[in-house]
C-alpha cells in the first residue's frame, strides 16, 4: 500500500521557534505538496516541488520555506513560528502529469503558543 508519512501527528511550539515538518513518500513520486487546512478555508497550497531541489511557491508561501534534497522527502520549515500558523498541515505526492491522483498524508496538527 502506497504511503505518505508525516513525522508528527501533533506538535506544540513556541512563538519564534524554527519548526520543521517532515514528509516522506514511498511511491517514487516526482511531485510533492504542502497544504494547510483551516475550517471554512479548505486546503490552501503553501509550496510544491516538481522534483528534487526544485520548488515553487503556492498561494500562501509567506512565513514558510521548503527543502527537497531527496526525492522521497519534502520538508516544510517555519522560520519563526507565529500563532497564526496554528493549523493542520497536509503533505501530498503525485506522479508527474498526466497522472493526477494526489496521495495525502494523515496531517500534522501544529499549535503555536
Amino acid at each position, binding site marked *: 500500500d502506497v504511503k*505518505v508519512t508525516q513525522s508528527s*501527528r501533533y506538535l506544540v511550539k513556541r512563538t519564534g521557534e524554527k519548526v520543521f515538518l517532515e514528509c516522506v513518500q514511498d511511491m517514487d513520486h516526482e511531485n510533492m505538496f504542502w*497544504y494547510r*487546512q483551516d*475550517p*471554512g*478555508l*479548505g*486546503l*490552501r*497550497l503553501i509550496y*510544491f516541488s516538481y522534483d528534487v531541489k526544485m520548488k515553487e511557491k*503556492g498561494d500562501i508561501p509567506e512565513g514558510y520555506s521548503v527543502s527537497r534534497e531527496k526525492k522521497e522527502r519534502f520538508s516544510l520549515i517555519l522560520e519563526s513560528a507565529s500563532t497564526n500558523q496554528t493549523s493542520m498541515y*497536509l503533505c*501530498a505526492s503525485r506522479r*508527474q*502529469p*498526466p*497522472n*493526477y*491522483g*494526489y*496521495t*495525502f*498524508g*494523515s*496531517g500534522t496538527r501544529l499549535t503555536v503558543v
Partner: protein
Amino acid sequence: QQQVKQSPQSLIVQKGGIPIINCAYENTAFDYFPWYQQFPGKGPALLIAIRPDVSEKKEGRFTISFNKSAKQFSLHIMDSQPGDSATYFCAASKRAGNMLTFGGGTRLMVKP
C-alpha cells in the same frame, strides 16, 4: 480569492437521506473536478471525479452532477450511511495533472 466556493459548510442528514454538496467555480479554464473525502485523523482521499464533457458520473452511491453553463457541480450521496460521515472537499484544475484548487469543505454527519 477563493476560486471554488463550496456549500454548505456543514450538513446533518438521517440515515438513508440524500445529502447534496454544491460547488461553484469561476475559472472557465477548469476542466477537471474531483471530490475528496476526509475522515477524522486521516488525509483526504480521492472519491470521484468528472470532466466537463459529461453531465453526470456515478460510482456506487456517489454521483457528481455537472452544469457547465452555470459553472457548478455537486455531489449526491444516495442512501447515506453513518459511515459516510466525513468532511468532503470539491476541487478543480485547469487540466488533469495541474494544481488543484480546493473548496472550503463540508462536514457531513449522517445520523443513525
